[in-house]
């Protein structure tokens, strides 16, 4: 029985009716890879989002499809932060943890707040499972869980009972236990069930027994919360005051896909997406594969090189073209990206970064591909690079990438990462009419056409096959200024190298000035890029709130950088670059602006915690 049982029953019964209001809460569903935790987490997220909270999520799963049951390596988790206010991260520490087995408990307990809610599936705390999780003693009995509000629920047993009437065999029946757990947490945080019930109906329409079983389990969990007497408190997180509009919850990978579709529409073009599956980028491919009604041409290539080459071909022939991959895939594409740079063909390369080097930590997040994005190719081979800062922001970033690509006739690299790619947050549905069209002009006039004659932005014309009289030839060899003919002339090579570089620098005219949040000058400037936005912004909010002279410069554009960056850097005493790598942006900033910077580096396959940033900042600020 749980620690709670020590209290007087009377009190608990009352407590059950009591409900504490919270500004925000972070909870984690954790269990074995096969326990359906990703599903439970997603459902909880959607319910909370629809309920009106701001939400931020962090799914975390092992590299194996299904690691050996019960082992530490096999733990899969889904963290949700939901709030009555605007939030930017999935939360540092947990208010509640659902641990479906000892391994899940072992791996995640350290993140649970003291006094936090801990729900465990007591059925799974068998000797064998404890051993698999490397517990010497049963923690449910050892007293080591004393600091938490522990609820021992025989989830498996309850689930089996609840779904008995469906006649499902035990193995299948017990698979519903994630819904039971979900129901319990729904009760705990006072969420409505409708949304999930509807989802179950649609999802399992073809297997009614499974649909019924899941629904029964969900309700049983909820009802257990409601009727059992073990819970002494219930929580409420009221809706957040978000900007008015229609919202939906969206992961970064979904948002990237939607952004690409939208960009193609705004350009009045079909979208060609050539890709080779790789974690954590595959969901972009999946999402786009399912959107054929938008004339999305998805080409699942034989490898990343073919994927990249195919988009060069498709862009050359006039489609809006993009590819998506992760770190090792980008490495493979680099030679072909160079071809896109020298042929000046517009396309977008999305890198959903993951832990490296090599195969590294394929399902974990990291930001260690900035170097390869900006300067990781053979020869002088510059291209624009931008990074999305949150799941929903991937939508805007993808559109921006396409816009720049077609305007400047260049490949553009869009960096996201596993954390924001898989993580989710509410996305305010834009008004389609308000989206700015993407203007594309194709060359058509044989009289004036020259393949490498540049416009005022430095871009060459986009002349697509099928256009009469514009036949011309391009390729990877250096080409003559204006005519585009193969040319080995020394001065021409210098000139073309400079023209290509200048063109990319010109992108600065299309990107907004760098903004700084918080103080615009002072003691410390926190600098971040990409998916670390949320943690750094939250830390800055707290620091500024505490009266610290701190600013936050979050860089969306990594190449080129906005013109005013140099100026901003001068206005702070200390510069702290926070990145999930060993200091790549730091290196680039130092090279470009010759400033002294400090670095906060983390390569643990995990996003920053807000407190890590705050502590480092305090350390630098000292008594300031």
């Amino acid at each position, binding site marked *: 029985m749980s620690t709670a049982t020590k209290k007087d029953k009377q009190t608990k019964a009352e407590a059950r009716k009591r409900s504490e209001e919270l500004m925000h809460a972070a909870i984690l569903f954790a269990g074995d890879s096969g326990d359906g935790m990703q599903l439970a987490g997603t459902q909880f997220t959607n319910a909370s989002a629809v*309920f009106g909270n701001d939400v931020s999520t962090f799914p975390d799963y092992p590299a194996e499809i299904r690691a050996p049951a019960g082992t530490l390596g096999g733990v899969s988790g889904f963290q949700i932060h939901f709030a009555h206010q605007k939030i930017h991260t999935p939360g540092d520490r947990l208010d509640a943890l659902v641990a479906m087995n000892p391994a899940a408990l072992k791996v995640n307990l350290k993140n649970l707040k003291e006094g936090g809610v801990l729900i465990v599936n007591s059925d799974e705390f068998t000797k064998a499972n404890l051993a698999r999780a490397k517990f010497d003693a049963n923690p449910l009995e050892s007293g080591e869980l004393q600091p938490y509000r522990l609820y021992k629920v025989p989830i498996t047993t309850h689930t089996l009972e609840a779904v008995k009437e469906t006649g499902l065999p035990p193995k299948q029946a017990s698979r519903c236990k994630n819904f039971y757990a979900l129901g319990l947490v729904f009760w705990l945080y006072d969420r409505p069930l409708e949304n999930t019930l509807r989802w179950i109906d649609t999802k399992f329409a073809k297997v009614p027994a499974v649909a019924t079983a899941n629904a029964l389990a969900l309700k049983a969990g909820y009802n257990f919360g409601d009727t059992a007497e073990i819970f002494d408190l219930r929580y409420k997180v009221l809706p957040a005051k978000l900007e008015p509009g*229609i919202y939906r919850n969206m992961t970064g990978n979904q948002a990237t896909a939607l952004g690409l579709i939208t960009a193609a529409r705004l350009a009045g073009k079909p979208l060609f997406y050539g890709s080779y599956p790789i974690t954590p980028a595959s969901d972009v491919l999946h999402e786009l594969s399912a959107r054929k009604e938008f004339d999305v041409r998805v080409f699942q290539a034989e490898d990343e090189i073919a994927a*990249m080459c195919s988009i060069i071909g498709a862009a050359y022939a006039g489609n809006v073209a993009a590819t998506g991959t992760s770190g090792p895939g980008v490495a493979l594409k680099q030679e072909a990206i160079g071809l896109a740079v020298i042929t000046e063909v517009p396309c977008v390369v999305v890198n959903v970064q993951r832990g490296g080097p090599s195969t590294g930590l394929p399902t974990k997040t990291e930001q260690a591909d900035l170097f390869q994005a900006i300067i990781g190719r053979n020869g002088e081979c510059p291209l624009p690079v931008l990074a999305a800062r949150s799941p929903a922001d991937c939508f805007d970033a993808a559109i921006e990438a396409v816009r720049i690509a077609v305007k400047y006739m260049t490949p553009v690299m869009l960096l996201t990462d596993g954390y924001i790619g898989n993580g989710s947050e509410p996305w305010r549905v834009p008004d389609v009419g308000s*989206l700015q069209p993407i203007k594309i002009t194709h060359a058509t006039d044989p009289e004036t056409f020259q393949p490498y004659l540049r416009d005022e932005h430095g871009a060459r014309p986009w002349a697509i096959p099928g256009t009469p009289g514009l036949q011309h030839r391009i390729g990877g060899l250096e080409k003559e200024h204006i005519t585009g003919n193969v040319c080995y002339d020394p001065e021409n090579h210098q000139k073309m190298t400079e023209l290509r570089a200048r063109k990319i620098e010109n992108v600065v005219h299309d990107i907004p000035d760098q903004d700084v949040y918080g103080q615009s000058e002072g003691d410390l400037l926190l600098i971040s890029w990409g998916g670390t936005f949320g943690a750094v912004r939250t830390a800055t909010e707290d620091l500024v709130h505490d009266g610290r002279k701190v600013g936050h410069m979050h860089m969306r554009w990594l190449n080129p950088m906005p013109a005013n960056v140099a100026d901003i850097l001068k206005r702070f005493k200390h510069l702290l670059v926070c990145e999930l790598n060993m200091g790549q942006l730091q290196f680039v900033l130092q090279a470009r602006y010759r400033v002294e910077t400090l670095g906060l580096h983390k390569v643990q396959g995990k996003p920053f915690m807000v407190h890590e940033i705050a502590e480092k900042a305090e350390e630098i600020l000292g008594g300031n």
Partner: protein
Amino acid sequence: MSATATKPNPKQYKSSQEVRWCPGCGDYSILTQLLKTFADLGVKKENTVIVSGIGCSSRFPYYVDCYGFHSIHGRAPAVATGVKVANPDLDVWVITGDGDGLSIGGNHLIHTIRRNVGLKIILFNNKIYGLTKGQYSPTSEFGKKTKSSPFGAIDHPIHPISIAIGAEVTFVARCVDVDGKLMQQVFRRAAEHKGTAFIEVYQDCNVYNHGSFAYASDRKVRDDHLVYLEHGKPMIFGKEKNKGIRLNGTEPEIVELGKGITPDDLLIHDERAPSPTHAYLLSRMHYPEMPEPVGIFRDIELPTYEQLLHSQIHDVIEQRGKGELEKLFTSGDTWKVD
């Protein structure tokens, strides 16, 4: 592709760029024949795209007045796939070499073939790396001495047509650079074929591998070393047309006509055999043991990749209606904040 009243002159399809192959290179003849084929078919320049990789052969696009893309080593089929999918109305030709197409680019070639992307791929097989000045290639003979194999190559060569058939190609043919007539016939048929057409051309590299195909190009001997494939016809060859190919189990054997053996005993060539085994068998006939087949080994119909892709899109649009951003944005669970 549409025939015009007066056929255009092949010269009209030449670009202004100077041709930069060595004197005597077999590439010239292939260029000439393709230009003639274009003229003959009256193809529209603006609807024609030639994509190549890297190698002497891959300089080809510069010399033709149509759209051209000289890509990177081995990747032409992938670039061309993008072009063809983006715009299936274009006629897309791929020019590659034995190194470009079979060494670094072997995988793209195979996958393009198995997908049956509507590309016309001409592989210039000179059994050498020309552009990099003479290393052995995947088709170089075992024991061949080259700059990178001064003691003889120890790699067993690959046979382009066998590989293509292994990947289930829908059109495959072979020509010799000096035989312009056959080349034109084959190019024309390739142009008419809907899926991937793969053509191996024996091409003399005059500088680094001269004479490697002498047995097949020398007028004096070639008729004894080649068998011209004709659909539905028995396989007869030899200067005197007195030899034939007969099936012995699953193996071809040479027989002399006469002495009781008539054309009826011979293997009948069937381009359209539903199974690729017949074509595979032909691809295994190698000089000097056997005459080597030239002409069209196989030509069957199969839906092309680009057709299937576009018709799938078409079907989904039929079902779901043309995609609307509003609907897309609000698909899934949404909620309203006022």
